[in-house]
């Protein structure tokens, strides 16, 4: 996805075991923070046609 130009921070992967509540909350904060920095996503978003496409 990055290859086609999606910002790196729009996709996050992590491994958190069921015991790692702290890590979960931390990662959640980081993810939210990074995405906020990026601003609203414009890529890959389907613009649904609402009226004549012309």
């Amino acid at each position, binding site marked *: *996805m990055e290859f086609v130009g*999606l910002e790196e*921070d*729009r*996709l*996050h*992967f*992590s*491994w*958190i*075991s*069921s*015991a*790692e*509540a*702290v*890590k*979960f*909350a931390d*990662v*959640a*904060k980081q*993810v*939210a*923070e*990074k*995405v*906020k920095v*990026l*601003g*609203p*996503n414009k*890529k*890959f*978003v*389907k613009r649904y046609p609402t009226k004549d496409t012309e």
Partner: protein
Amino acid sequence: MSEYEPKIVSFLCNWCSYGAADLAGVSRFQYPDNFRVIRIPCTGRMSPKFFLSALREGADAVWVSG
């Protein structure tokens, strides 16, 4: 920018991160409210279709956690 509240679709593994999220609740750890969780049986279930679809539908980010 402070107004901007992204919507982040999170796919959480039932056995790992979903449990961690539950536990975070038990422990009352506060974290941002931007996540909309979809419980999946295992991160192996995660298909590229879901990433694409989430973004297509206007999610600002996707978070997959196992």
